[in-house]
């Protein structure tokens, strides 16, 4: 059977990353000494799903690594191992390693052994060390686990045979599976010896005739591939405990002889390939044959806990290539309702169109209004599908703050507010890194060391607050710390020293504080590992600006600072001003327009280098002629006929000279580089009501472009 498993890879990776997140959160919530079973269980389940999935897809590094992890967790779960700080730290580290491994696999890159060797050794050491100390029945199995992982890959001796343990669940007969058929199948592969275990058989009056109480041990005396055997049990692997062992025939017979009298669940720990829990992506029957044939490690205490299945549903969509999204069912329901309404409106209008006369004009208008409303609502609900709660981003911070505080020798408490605030998925994906930077910055430069804090009369434990909320059409994310705040004097000094500002410039405190976003700026006295190389803040600002957002800082010396990130809710739709230059239509993002005005010739001043500036109250705004920039024939002959749209990007204002202002409307952004390449000064295109394409101006890019051309012109003149 050849089924392209790679189509499930994306789902596996997504689920695994989610699983890792669950593990991480769970681990952070674990306090030493306490055994909160629910938390440990959820960590265990996540690890188990990853293991099952990775084994199915033959990511051996991941599955064997997770296996050790699971062993440790299993012991914790059973209360056989105490939850110590070291253990939690080690587990957290292994979560990181797993994440790295999965990322490499996702990128189709090989996983170097060095990546996981250290941690996996440490894990194994922990498992065997304490396991042996306990000295109970389990320890034997545990010790065996580290020793025997290679044993099973024995050489292909002639007398090699397979010892198969087959213990179906009691309801197996109800699903139409008949063990005897499987034995028949097996016998086609080679000679078989079957021993039936009937210890579980209840007394006659208790027997339910539809249940299966039996389990079997089978010796298959044939040199066949594990895959072939697995294929036989393919349809029951989810409903039974299966174990395969590759042994010399004599050894197998001996085992069978000695163990025939032992209850099945005691046989199981000897060797078992865990059947993947149903519910994990691996459990789809088609995917099953791929179960790893080298996955023959000894599983200590064989208990296929199907709890994993209860919590985790397989992802709905197997997406091809691109990422997928999980949507609340209520959002989908509201969409369906809206589409229903739309269909009704459409049929009403259709009917009217069949025999239309002027008397129906009123009703036509009504219908059109209704249609408009439907469309708008539909648009809004579709947008809501892309919205996810910001907790997806916030969740990574508790771990980061914990690690960083340790590293910096500071005591920091993190508070999250407004985790339910929803944000567009694409924005979310890109806001993570800038936020990490800001939080790191707050902890490194903002929060003081505990001793310093005490001297300043503040509690030893510093506080970092992440707060997200909606404001108008924007989402605002605030990162507040109660640290030392920004020393405006120091910033100014540094800025002058670095040549960022002039010595004479008069700046307000606000303006000075925001200088830290300038390139090449860092006030940290020592360059630390965490931050301080002066590459952070300007990158943060640039990233946020590229999302159409802005970032600001406000600070009170001695009381802390607040960074506010302001972002548009979505990147897919934009409020635009439609303008006309010659016969071309462009869209200017409304958010970047400061004002629009009619010019008079005498208000324009020419200054050196052929630059024309317009005096806008106190400012001097350079004029940019779109027609010249883009080589279009414009209509206006003198400035008296033209309109100037004053736009601003990254703090720079320019006046765009256009022929006419048309409507204001919402436009759907389509990227140019799907079929073409992206062009400087153009952020995308959109389709107007009449079906024509209009380009959307990228003001930041325009300004950069113009400056470049200006420079070259100047150089030319010189």
């Amino acid at each position, binding site marked *: *059977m*050849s*089924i392209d498993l790679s189509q499930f890879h994306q789902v596996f990776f997504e689920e695994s990353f989610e699983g890792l997140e669950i593990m991480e959160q769970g681990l952070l919530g674990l306090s030493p000494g306490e055994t909160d079973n629910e938390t440990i269980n959820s960590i265990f389940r996540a690890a188990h799903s990853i293991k099952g999935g990775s084994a199915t897809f033959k990511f051996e590094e991941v599955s064997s690594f997770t296996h050790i992890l699971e062993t440790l967790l299993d012991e914790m779960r059973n209360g056989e191992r105490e939850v110590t700080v070291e253990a939690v730290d080690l587990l957290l580290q292994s979560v990181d390693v797993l994440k790295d491994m999965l990322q490499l696999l996702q990128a189709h890159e090989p996983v170097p052994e060095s990546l996981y060797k250290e941690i996996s050794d440490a894990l194994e050491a922990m498992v065997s060390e304490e396991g042996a100390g306990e000295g109970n029945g389990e320890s034997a199995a545990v010790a065996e686990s580290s020793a025997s992982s290679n044993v099973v890959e024995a050489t292909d001796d002639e007398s090699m045979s397979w010892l198969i343990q087959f213990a179906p669940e009691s309801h197996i007969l109800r699903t139409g599976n*008949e063990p*005897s*058929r499987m034995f*028949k*199948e097996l016998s*086609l592969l080679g000679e078989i010896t079957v021993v039936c275990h009937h210890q579980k058989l209840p007394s006659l009056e208790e027997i339910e005739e539809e249940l299966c109480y039996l389990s079997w041990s089978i010796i298959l005396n044939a040199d066949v591939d594990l895959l072939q055997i697995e*294929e*036989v049990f*393919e*349809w029951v692997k989810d409903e039974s405990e299966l174990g395969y062992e590759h042994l010399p025939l004599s050894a197998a017979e001996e085992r069978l002889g000695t163990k025939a009298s032992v209850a099945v669940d005691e046989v199981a720990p000897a060797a078992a390939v865990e059947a993947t829990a149903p519910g994990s992506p691996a459990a789809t029957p088609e995917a099953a044959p791929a179960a790893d044939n080298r996955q023959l490690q000894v599983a200590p205490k064989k208990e296929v806990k199907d709890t994993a299945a209860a919590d985790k549903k397989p992802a709905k969509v197997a997406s091809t*290539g691109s990422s997928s999204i999980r949507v609340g069912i209520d959002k989908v329901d509201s969409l369906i309702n809206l589409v229903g309404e739309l269909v009704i409106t459409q049929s009403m209008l259709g009917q009217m169109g069949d025999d239309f006369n002027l008397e129906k004009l009123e009703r036509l208008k009504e219908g059109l209004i209704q249609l408009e409303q439907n469309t708008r609502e539909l648009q809004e609900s579709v947008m809501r599908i892309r919205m996810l709660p910001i907790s997806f981003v916030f969740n990574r911070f508790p771990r980061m703050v914990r690690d960083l505080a340790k590293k910096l020798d500071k005591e920091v408490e993190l508070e999250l507010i407004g985790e339910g605030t929803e944000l567009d998925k694409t924005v979310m994906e890109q806001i993570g890194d800038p936020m990490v930077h800001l939080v790191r910055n707050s902890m490194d430069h903002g929060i003081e060391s505990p001793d310093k804090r005490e001297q300043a009369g503040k509690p030893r434990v510093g506080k970092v607050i992440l707060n997200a909320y909606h404001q108008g059409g924007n989402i605002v994310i605030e990162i507040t710390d109660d640290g030392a705040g920004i020393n405006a004097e120091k910033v100014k000094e540094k800025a002058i020293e670095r040549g960022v500002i002039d010595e004479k410039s008069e700046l307000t405190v606000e303006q000075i504080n925001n200088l830290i976003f300038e390139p090449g700026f860092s006030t940290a006295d020592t360059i630390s590992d965490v931050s301080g190389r002066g590459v952070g803040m300007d990158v943060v600002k640039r990233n946020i600006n590229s999302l159409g957002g802005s970032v600001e800082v406000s600070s009170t010396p001695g009381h802390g600072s607040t960074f506010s990130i302001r972002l548009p809710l979505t990147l897919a739709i934009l409020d635009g001003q439609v303008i006309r230059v010659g016969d*071309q*239509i462009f869209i200017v993002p409304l958010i970047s327009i400061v004002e629009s005005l009619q010019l008079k010739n005498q208000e324009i001043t020419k200054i050196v280098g052929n630059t024309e500036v317009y005096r806008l109250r106190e400012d001097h705004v350079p004029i940019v002629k779109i027609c010249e*920039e*883009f*080589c*279009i024939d414009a209509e206006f002959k003198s400035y008296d006929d033209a309109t100037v749209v004053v736009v601003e990007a990254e703090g720079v204002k320019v006046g765009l000279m256009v022929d006419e202002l048309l409507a204001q409307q919402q436009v759907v952004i*389509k*990227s*140019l580089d*799907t*079929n*073409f*390449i992206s*062009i*400087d*000064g*153009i952020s995308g*295109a959109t*389709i107007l009501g009449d*079906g*024509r*394409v*209009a*380009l959307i101006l990228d003001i930041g890019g325009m300004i950069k472009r113009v400056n*470049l*051309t200006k*420079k*070259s012109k*100047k*150089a*030319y003149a010189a």
Partner: protein
Amino acid sequence: MNDVASDTIPYIGEDDTYHDINETIGKQFLTVSLQGETYCIDILSVNEIRGWQTPTMLPNAPEYVKGVINIRGNIVPIIDLRQRFNMEFQEYNETTVVIVLSVEEAGISRVMGVVVDAVSDVLNIDESEIKDAPDMSGSIDASFVMGLCNVDDGVVVILDVEGLLALSDIRKHYGAEERSEESVS
């Protein structure tokens, strides 16, 4: 009961082979005319054929890039094949058509329209009949040509769609613009 054992194991057929129709009758090509010459385009890369419509211009684009149009919600760039091949520009008339072509690039298909004088025919050409093009120092870039083929008593040029739709020249054009600006400054 035992005799049904093998039947009950579901089995996905391995002999379910797929016969490619093109293997037997050769490939089909759409022929178009440009300045009286005939060119062939692999018909499998043709999405549709449209009449000329004025596109929205792209600022500072190379001359042969006519602009972009909206095809069912997609923004599709249009290039003029005559100008691309350094032929004389001809005013668009009623036989001028835009052939919308698509290519796969790293698993993603990309769409572009090319303007030609007219479409004429569909030809069946066996792949063995396609000859390598001689070293052409002519006006057409070698990367646009896949080969030549004798049809009746004439020769047709088979165009390489991937080469035709390659963006490297356009990228170079925009890059060169930036560079020249930078170098001057």
